């Protein structure tokens, strides 16, 4: 790995996106519009919005970053550029971290805008500090990026990649504690939920929404989320093969 090539790759990915302004617009606008819609839906019951607005602020950027990243890396594979890169003097981690860096930076921007809008435009009341809200949203967006990088290794076609959303993300969403509190889940499902990253992402957001100070539990949640993200990137690097059988 060479830091310079990581940065060069990140810059290249950013330049690619700059030629595609519509994708960039969607990236920033979609989570904001969804949150606005949610606020509107619950306009007669603001207490409910305060309860689920935070956790969903964790979910929307996570999902968007997951999709964008998995398709982008799949394109790298199918265009033959990945094969070319792997025959050149560049580390596998340079390629993955380059992607992670650019999409991570976009995730920061996206999470910041969405959090700011949620609080200041949509009237989301969170008990905890605003920076904690942004931090958790950011960790979740990074998790989405990292998981997207990872699963793209297993997608042979765009059709498969798109279906990884329902396959990987929906089960996590059903089990994350947002629909039914974890304590009310059947024991087996509770155990499974404990092993899924989105559970911690949503738990962190719920805590920031409800607790006036940032507790050790919240920090633990954020650490777990970032740990999952790091593991996904490293596993993603392990799945890149310079040679085919």
């Amino acid at each position, binding site marked *: 790995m060479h830091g*310079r090539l990581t940065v060069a790759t990140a810059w290249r990915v950013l330049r690619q996106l700059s030629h595609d302004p519509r994708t960039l617009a969607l990236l920033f606008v979609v989570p904001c519009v969804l949150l606005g819609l949610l606020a509107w839906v619950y306009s007669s019951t603001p207490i409910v919005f305060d309860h689920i607005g935070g956790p969903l602020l964790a979910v929307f950027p996570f999902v968007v970053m997951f999709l964008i990243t998995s398709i982008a890396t799949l394109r790298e594979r199918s265009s033959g550029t990945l094969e*070319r890169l792997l025959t050149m003097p560049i580390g596998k981690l340079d390629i993955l971290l380059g992607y992670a860096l650019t999409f991570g930076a976009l995730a920061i921007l996206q999470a910041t805008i969405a959090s700011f809008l949620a609080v200041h435009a949509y009237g989301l009341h969170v008990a905890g500090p605003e920076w904690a809200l942004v931090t958790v949203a950011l960790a979740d967006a990074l998790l989405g990026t990292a998981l997207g990088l990872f699963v793209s290794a297993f997608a042979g076609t765009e059709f498969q990649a798109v279906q990884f959303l329902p396959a990987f993300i929906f089960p996590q969403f059903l089990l994350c504690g947002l629909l039914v509190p974890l304590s009310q889940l059947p024991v087996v499902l509770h155990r499974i939920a404990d092993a899924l990253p989105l559970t911690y992402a949503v738990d962190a957001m719920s805590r920031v929404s409800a607790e006036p100070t940032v507790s050790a539990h919240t920090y633990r949640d954020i650490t777990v989320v970032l740990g999952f993200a790091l593991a996904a990137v490293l596993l993603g690097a392990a799945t890149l093969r310079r040679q*085919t059988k």
Partner: protein
Amino acid sequence: MQDIVLQADALTINREGQPVLRDVSFAMAPGRITGLIGPSGSGKTTLMRAVVGAQRIAAGRLTVLGLSAGSKALRPRIGYVTQSPAVYDDLTARQNIQYFATILRLPRAAVDEVIGVVDLQPQANQVVGSLSGGQKARVSLAVALLGNAQLLVLDEPTVGLDPLLRQKLWALFARLADEGRSLIISSHVMEEAELCNDLLLLRDGRLLAYGPKAQLLHDTQTKSVEAAFLKLVKGVTRAR
């Protein structure tokens, strides 16, 4: 400089359990253009991918510039053009070449140089997705020409190019070979085979013949590579 650029000893490669190359042996001298000739499905691309280290070898040995194929030290020393242009559609030609030049730790001047070599100055700042097939192929070729790769592995680099440009590129290939670089160029266009110094004929994953073009024509008592190829194929079929 090595006496041998590329050496295969009883090279066998399988893909998905099926043998694609069987028991192929040859040794290539540097500074020559070697044409890799054979029908589609004969194993040309697989052999090239093995040379650049992208394809695992099942049995035998493949030595590139004195090192085992796939060695890390070979990566900056081989230029590779895949059959379909491996460049980013959503970058300009220059941005594409710039990125790969950074990976090879080359100065900015190297980018302009290869853009000039492949005649892409007018399109340099266009997004590759908006270029024609031939222009796109030239961007991909320009990337392979970056740096001073001693070995250039070009998989059908002139497909879809107009005759004038094709002629220019072959002149460029000849110039590169004169500089002492070695080129392996696959093609199924027999006219192009005539422009190579050496020929490596493949059929059904087996080496049909390898050697200087003149030698091949002499041995087969033919006047063109196409005729030589056909005669060799018939000979093999009869021998079976």
